[in-house]
């Protein structure tokens, strides 16, 4: 009988302990998570070294095509969105390893300056595309590639199903930048997201700025 009493006390102590541990975790997520996650993302970025082979792409201005394409997995540009205070590296390719480093560029889309669809993806963590839904119509997005700088202006956004490929048109009639991340963008909720938040931006200006 004494053993049963001890077991019950142990079980109640365990339940109380889990309760306080859960309170601690909830406090972390609601009070500290936003402050800590950018540092975690930074650690992930610096700890995971991919094939960071930076190939200088060559661009034919008249043909509006690249002559030498960046190799898969290489960083070839920087994405800047001043309205949400975001600057991220852009890599050719969008596998899991690349998406931990920054923005992934889908290989089946065109490059900046090629007058076609450009498809960029990033996780919705703080420090990546967490504030993608805060970009407003008219905001300027700049891609500083190794072969030139290109500016785009946000036109619209959509929330689409991940299987709706018509929301990601790959075309060669105009330069259209599409950036997407999983939706909804919420804090630390695990599980597969079936929707994507997509920002559409069109190229502005014809001149390519070179540094």
């Amino acid at each position, binding site marked *: 009988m004494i053993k049963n009493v001890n077991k019950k006390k142990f079980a109640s102590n365990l339940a109380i302990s889990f309760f306080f541990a859960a309170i601690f975790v909830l406090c972390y997520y609601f009070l500290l998570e936003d402050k800590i996650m950018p540092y975690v993302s930074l650690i992930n970025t610096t700890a995971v070294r991919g094939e960071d082979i930076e190939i200088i792409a060559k661009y034919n201005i008249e043909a509006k095509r690249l002559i030498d394409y960046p190799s898969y997995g290489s960083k070839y540009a920087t994405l800047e969105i001043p309205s949400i205070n975001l600057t991220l590296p852009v890599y050719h390719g969008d596998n899991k390893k690349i998406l931990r480093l920054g923005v992934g560029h889908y290989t089946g889309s065109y490059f900046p300056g090629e007058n076609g669809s450009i498809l960029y993806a990033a996780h*919705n963590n703080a420090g990546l595309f967490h504030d993608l839904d805060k970009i407003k119509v008219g905001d300027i997005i700049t891609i500083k590639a190794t072969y030139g700088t290109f500016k785009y202006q946000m036109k619209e956004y959509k929330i689409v199903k991940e299987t709706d490929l018509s929301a990601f048109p790959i075309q060669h009639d105009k330069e259209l930048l599409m950036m997407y991340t999983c939706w909804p963008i919420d804090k630390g909720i*695990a599980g597969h997201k079936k929707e994507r938040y997509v920002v559409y931006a069109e190229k502005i200006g014809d001149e390519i700025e070179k540094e």
Partner: protein
Amino acid sequence: MKKLSLIALFVGLLVLGTNVKAMTEAELKGKLFQTFEIGGKDYTLSDDQKVIVERYLEKNEISEADADTIWAKVQKALNVIKGQGNTNFTKYPQSVKNELKAIVEEISSETKVKATLTKEGLEVKNSDGTKVIIDTPVKRTGYETSKTAIIAGLSILIVAVGTCLVIKQVKTSE
């Protein structure tokens, strides 16, 4: 119009049978971007796959000799795919996947076209050794929680058990 699977894409790329350089770019694209009939259904490359194929052809050259060798292998692959009645590579039995993988490896070993089948998809290498990855447009870009969840779960467990043991110890000593 159905979209081609990865294997069919590779088949389409290699069903040239002639020296690439002998064709104009328009003729070449016409051959690659045509509609293929497999299992009584029509298939064609998607727009993003066409971008990948265009880019590959801009960087690489396929000789007549290699094309002849590839064509023989492609016939084998086509027969295997037709036997399945569809082009959904992911749903093929493992034995069929292995068979197709072996054909791809034969092409790689006997020609300058280097390709392998990996978990991520069909991986083709350019002549300079860099990769050409062929996969799907939309990726999983949710909150990276897998590691966080495991660590958080373990932390909760450790804190809970530790606290419990401390409480027990304190009570025992009273």
